[in-house]
């Protein structure tokens, strides 16, 4: 399954590094559960697509040092992405992952 990264950096091992917001990575269910339990900020691609990040937003604001204007809609979308991370983590935790 394809997941999208919504943090600043994560090293998943096996030469899989995520270093831009929006980076995609294919993970098995077990790999995803391990990554999420180890605090990696990933969400399913379908969930990410619903947040409607534009290519320009990912290009301009997808790296850690990016300065996002205060009133830019990217802030709200990113917050929703982080909320989705939390909800996914809680869901897996309740299942005993």
């Amino acid at each position, binding site marked *: 399954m394809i997941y999208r990264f919504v*943090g600043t950096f994560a*090293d998943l091992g096996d030469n899989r590094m995520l270093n831009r917001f929006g980076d995609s990575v294919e993970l098995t269910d077990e790999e995803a559960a391990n990554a999420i339990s180890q*605090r990696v900020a990933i969400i399913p691609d379908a969930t990410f697509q619903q947040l409607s990040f534009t290519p320009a937003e990912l290009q301009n604001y997808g790296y850690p040092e990016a300065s996002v204007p205060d009133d830019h809609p990217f802030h709200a979308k990113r917050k929703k992405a982080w909320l989705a991370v939390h909800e996914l983590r809680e869901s897996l935790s309740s299942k005993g992952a």
Partner: protein
Amino acid sequence: MAVYSGSWLDRVLIQVQAASAPRTITNSSGTWTSTGTTNPRHMSLVLTQNKPVVPTPYKTGTRSTLVGLAGRRSGTFSYNGPLIPSGAAGTVPDSDPLFQSIFGTTATIVPSTSVTYSFLDNGFIPLAFFRYNKSGGSSPTNFYALGSVIQRYTINLGGEYLTHTAEGKCVAIGDSTQFASYSGNDAVAAGGLTTYPAEPGTIAVNGTPINGFGGTATFDGNVQVELRGTPTITINTGLDMAEDGFADGYPFAMTGGRRQVSGSFRFADDDTSNLNNIKTKAFTKAPITIALAVNTTAGSIVTITLKNVQLGPYSLTENGNLFDIVLGDSLAHASSAAAVDDVSIAFT
């Protein structure tokens, strides 16, 4: 042929142990369970075993010494590493086990917004450090620190990287070379394990480092632009161990004494009312709130809040082409008798 241990080929992991159980590394039937282990990244980890030889106390008629006994035993540790936020607001950092141990409890999480550590005075969470030698060879020696209690924690601001140090004592320092001998009076050093902790596979690493500068320093409600140099925040946790048990020579319980939270600050001297307020408060000892927010990128902001700070005495000190106002140790206090808010650390 000998394989020497390279200092860069050093992997350090940390894991909280069960509350108030400093002698037990998390395990299933004696095999280490690495769930919850994190890789906080580190510049250095010093683990020192403390197993002194106690000289014979009695007289023999000569002035020569005789072989003594191994006395009460324990260990010490000193960790120095980067303080790296997770990069996603509402997600705990990889250093989370350190903070759990310092504050005695897990963080308060507001999803997508913040992770905040505040004290729980009756919470005692020991830590285990694991060090793996990655230099290769047939039998490198790996180490662990069992039942680690952070006694002194310092955040170092103002540098190129935001860093922190954690120092304290532990129940024991174990190593893979000696592990098989941990029996009898030294069985405690095995931490409840029957096999040496096997190095886990990948432990994800999260977040990018941040500068120790670049943010907002607020003193008594005023943004203090004159703050300069390398401010430090130090928590002397008051945590300790009971080390005089009868059953064996190792520490057997965590204890909690009074803690002390302090900050060290210097300002470029000027004639502004904000800085004059600092000077006045340093003289009158009227308490103020200090908030140091490091970084401005959401998901990677660290804010240290000190309550009821009584500023230390100040001196005018020459610093290059300017004079600085240098404050002596400024102590934070709880805001009321029932509060434990002397300091909190938030990631947003």
